[in-house]
């Protein structure tokens, strides 16, 4: 009950605390008027919100006289307290009060039920005679209020005036008890409200650190606490059995240290496989030269311009990755900054660089120069003019030498063919052919004596009747043995005409007429075939004639360009 009351007071005091701040010391000193005035003025200042504080106080004064007596008398219980209040305030209200049992149970969070208006500004009731409504809905009337004089007199007469407080909710004056004042003072001093409470009581530990003889509890221990568990025993025996049987083995610490052994024990039995053969080993790094020495010969040290050029050059363009430098003692050599980088780049090369087997030319430039015979070894050269073959009146277009080397034939623009003896330079024979002789070729077969000459669009086969009589006679015989075949199937516009009469006497044996002008004639090595070139002949630009059978054939169906020249291979059956 006391606590409840305390709470009620605390509430009240919260609202009106400011009023009491300075009041007690005033009274303790003296009950002076001046002092009282000052306190009054202060009061008014603090309670400036209330419109009629003074009048109310005066009213309260009267009641306060009775109230104080009452409260002191019926101090303890709340029931008595409230009834006392009620009694002091008004007798009529006392009758209407609900039965006091209601307050027997109480809790701190219960609202103040003397006035039910709730938490509203009380000045709203200033103009009304009542101040609120009680629990039954009846008006709580404002207590009678004296005027200023009453108030003053009360102040003068009542020694408890300073401890009288107006209850806002009921509008009554309440005289604070000594305990309440104590509490207020404690709070004002920032101390615990209860004066008796000692926050610094000596600590008594119940369970001391010292060993006590007697147990705290006297409960006897369970049986299970000193008998081994059967379940556990079973489990353990199972494990023990498993260990004994070797089912469970202790965990071995893993040994990551590598074991080395003779991996190449029988490597001499190894036969290289294909993979091994195609392997391209990485080229080794270049070995260092003098320039890399910590103390190189003076000529390897770079000059200032070279150092400058090196510094300015791109790291990729540098021929040397480092600058040579001379240190006069080993202790002065610093760490090479690019060491790790260099190793790293080598690693990259090893696994990223594509490899290719390259044949290195193991030669010097000198080896490539061919050994030419010295000009002196080639001597004697024909240094002097020995023979002049005179007789042609126009330019000589072509010459050909007999295979034995005795005779020479020359064709000229003066429409003649002249046969010369090589050694003497004598003209043995002159043949008028009636056209410019473009090409002339002596048959390479020494068993026959024939010359092929080209005049415009004709090839003329001539037996010059020079040299061995047997030979040129046999040649004539050979030509005469020709028999015309039964079925003449010449698709080619080539006409073979045997020369007769006067022409025959001069030596001409055959005339082969062609549709276009002929550029060149050449013999096959055996002397039976010869080829001609007709640059304008289109698909027939090259023709091959067989002398003995007087037959022609066209070797190329189509020529890819203008044929200028053909030649037989000397031994093999090739035509170029």
């Amino acid at each position, binding site marked *: 009950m006391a606590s409840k009351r305390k709470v009620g007071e605390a509430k009240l005091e919260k609202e009106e605390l400011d009023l009491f701040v300075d009041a007690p010391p005033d009274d303790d000193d003296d009950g002076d008027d001046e002092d009282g005035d000052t306190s009054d003025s202060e009061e008014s200042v603090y309670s400036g919100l209330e419109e009629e504080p003074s009048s109310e106080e005066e009213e309260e004064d009267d009641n306060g006289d009775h109230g104080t007596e009452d409260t002191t008398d019926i101090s303890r219980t709340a029931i008595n307290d409230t009834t006392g209040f009620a009694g002091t305030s008004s007798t009529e209200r006392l009758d209407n009060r609900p039965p006091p049992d209601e307050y027997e149970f109480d809790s701190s969070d219960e609202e103040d039920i003397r006035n039910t208006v709730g938490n509203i500004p009380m000045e709203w009731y200033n103009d009304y005679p009542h101040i609120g409504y009680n629990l039954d809905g009846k008006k709580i009337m404002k207590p009678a209020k004296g005027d200023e004089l009453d108030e003053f007199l009360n102040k003068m007469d009542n020694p408890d005036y300073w401890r009288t407080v107006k209850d806002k909710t009921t509008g009554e004056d309440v005289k604070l008890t000594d305990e309440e004042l104590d509490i207020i003072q404690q709070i004002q001093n920032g101390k615990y409200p209860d004066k008796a409470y000692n926050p610094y009581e000596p600590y008594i530990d119940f369970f001391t650190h010292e060993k006590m003889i007697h147990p705290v509890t006297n409960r006897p221990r369970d049986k299970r606490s000193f008998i081994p568990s059967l379940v556990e025993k079973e489990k353990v025996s199972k494990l023990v059995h498993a260990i004994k049987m070797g089912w469970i083995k202790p965990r071995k610490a893993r040994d990551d240290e590598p074991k080395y052994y003779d991996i190449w024990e029988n490597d001499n039995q190894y036969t290289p496989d294909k993979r091994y053969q195609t392997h391209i080993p990485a080229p080794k790094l270049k070995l260092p030269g003098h320039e890399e020495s910590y103390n190189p010969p003076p000529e390897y040290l770079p000059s200032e311009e070279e150092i400058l050029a090196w510094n300015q050059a791109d790291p990729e363009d540098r021929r040397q990755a480092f600058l040579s430098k001379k240190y006069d003692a080993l202790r002065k050599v610093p760490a090479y900054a690019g060491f790790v980088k260099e190793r*790293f780049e080598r690693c990259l090369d090893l696994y990223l660089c594509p490899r290719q087997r390259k044949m290195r030319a193991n030669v010097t430039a000198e080896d490539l120069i061919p050994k030419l015979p010295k000009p002196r070894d080639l001597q004697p050269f024909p240094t002097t003019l020995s023979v002049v073959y005179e007789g042609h009146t126009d330019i000589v277009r072509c010459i050909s030498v007999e295979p034995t080397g005795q005779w020479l034939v020359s064709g000229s623009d003066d429409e003649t063919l002249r046969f010369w003896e090589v050694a003497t330079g004598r003209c043995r024979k002159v043949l008028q052919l009636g056209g410019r002789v473009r090409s002339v070729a002596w048959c390479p077969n020494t068993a026959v004596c024939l010359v092929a000459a080209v005049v415009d669009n004709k090839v003329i086969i001539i037996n010059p009747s020079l040299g061995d009589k047997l030979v040129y006679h046999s040649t004539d015989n050979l030509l005469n043995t020709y028999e015309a075949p039964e079925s003449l199937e010449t698709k080619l516009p080539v006409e073979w005409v045997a020369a007769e009469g006067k022409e025959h006497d001069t030596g001409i044996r055959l005339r082969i007429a062609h549709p276009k002008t002929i550029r060149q004639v050449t013999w096959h090595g055996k002397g039976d075939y010869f080829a001609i070139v007709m640059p304008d002949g289109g698909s027939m630009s090259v023709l091959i004639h067989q002398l003995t059978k007087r037959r022609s054939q066209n070797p190329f169906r189509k020529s890819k360009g203008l044929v200028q020249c053909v030649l037989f291979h000397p031994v093999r059956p090739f035509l170029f």
Partner: protein
Amino acid sequence: MGRLMKKKYESGAATAYITRNRAINYLQISLPDFRRLCILKGVYPREPKNKKKANKGSTAPRTFYLMKDIQYLSHEPIINKFREFKVFVKKLKKAFAKAEHGRVETLQENKPVYKLDHIIKERYPTFVDALRDLDDCLCLVFLFATFPQTKNIPGDFVRRCRHLSVEFMNFIVAAKALKKVFLSIKGIYYQVEMQGQVVTWLVPYSFGFNAKACADVDFRVMAHFVEFYITMLGFVNFKLYTSLGLHYPPKLTFEAKLKDDDEKNPYCLESEATGERLAALSASLASVVTQNTEEDEVELDEFEDSRTLEAKQEEEKQKAFQKLFNGLKVFVSREVPREPIVFTVRSFGGEASWDRSVAMGATFDESDETITHQIMDRPKADRQYLSRYYIQPQWLFDCVNAKMLLPVEDYFPGVVLPPHLSPFVEYKEGDYVPPEKEALSRRQQGLDTGDAVSEEADVSEEEEEEEEEGKEEEEIDDEDDEEEEDEEDDDDDDDDEKEEEVQKVERKMPVKRKQDDVPETPPSNMKVKEGKLDYEDASSKANREEWEARKLAILMIPKKRKRLFEKLSKRERRKKHEAKKLTTKREEFEKSQKDMKKKQRLSNK
């Protein structure tokens, strides 16, 4: 005709090659996995002979693999492991996300791993094949051994690389297989010969890891290579050790262990001590069989043949070379990089030690009186013992490359060192040969037993004096020479550039000879010069004729080879040009040196 027309691109190059994307589709794996597979299996792209045919008529740039290679890859069991790993990663992620820690643990315990043993056997069916491919392997393994273990490098690659490299070096020391060493600005090149295979690798100078320098380096790719190379080098090491009758996880001899056990070593944990001792390279390895004091020598058949004799001589030379540093007790000062020095000294039969506070495995102290050489890289020693030579580290390497012990005078501390020449350069005709190399080869042949360089210096000084005496006459000579040259130049004006060059080189010879002759002949004799003039004319005429004949012959080169000839001759010309540039540079340098000396001498006077 009844025959069906053959369709295009259904046989030949078009089917023999496959592009990379198609290969990936064929194998059903991702691109990174494909790359990894290629690295591990040693499959590389090929350049088809006819790219257009291989590309089915398109000329787009593509990389091609051999179809056979890809088919070969498709049978690789490792592909399945890749897939398993993918599944594993998925499971692990899920377990992590669900915070199932027990599952994460079991998953990680059962992480799929693959072995590369079969790949090694496939790629290198014989041991010699593996040795042939060891260059890149060693370079990378030695590089990784210097790295810190970072996030980029998976697993314990660094530790393994370090182990393997130490093992390999120990083998080289035991087998005495080292042939050449070269200090370059990049690092130290070593060349060894094993079973007739020459293997060269590069080790960086020991400095901290420079992350900035490897900004654009993909460590994953390198790690794939290293993964393969670690396995390979492990097997190679095993084979090498067993071939020499040594224990494979290498063991040190009993004495070496004892010596070290006496001293309390504060350098490392007891578990790491063996590895560190091995890395010190100072102790010899224990062999499986009790070692014979006399080595089993393969006796050549007794034929009194010139070839066998030669072979014998060669062998003896080889043996002498292997014992180059026999009896040498070398102490390495602390400012000198210890590993390369000890490795080199021990590979040639010497002994090496260092200050006990530097590293484990020191065999003797600085105060030892029997030390013959102390390697130091400071201009001056604090305390000097008279019983030993103080030399700079370059001496050791120069000795190895010259295959003989060089005089120590040039290598004293504080002295300007002679140039360090590369032992890998092979001189062909027409190449520039540095004068130091010439002096060295003369010394090697035993022609020049004395100190060549100092002699040269003497000669040059003498020459200088002579020069000063007969300056006027020489000037006249020079003028004459110039005139001659002018005349010749006039003759050559109509010739094209190349011909001129040939001529110049030809002309150079006699001129040089003449210069050589000058100091020999008494400078006052003028008649000699006249005679020379005649000789010059005759030779030049002959030269000219010869050159004309040559030009004629060049004209007769068939068209097919003309291009090749031009390319080759261009290369030769460039080479000649470079050689010429080097010689002129050298001459200039020597001239400036002489001037300096002269000035010094004058100032001294």
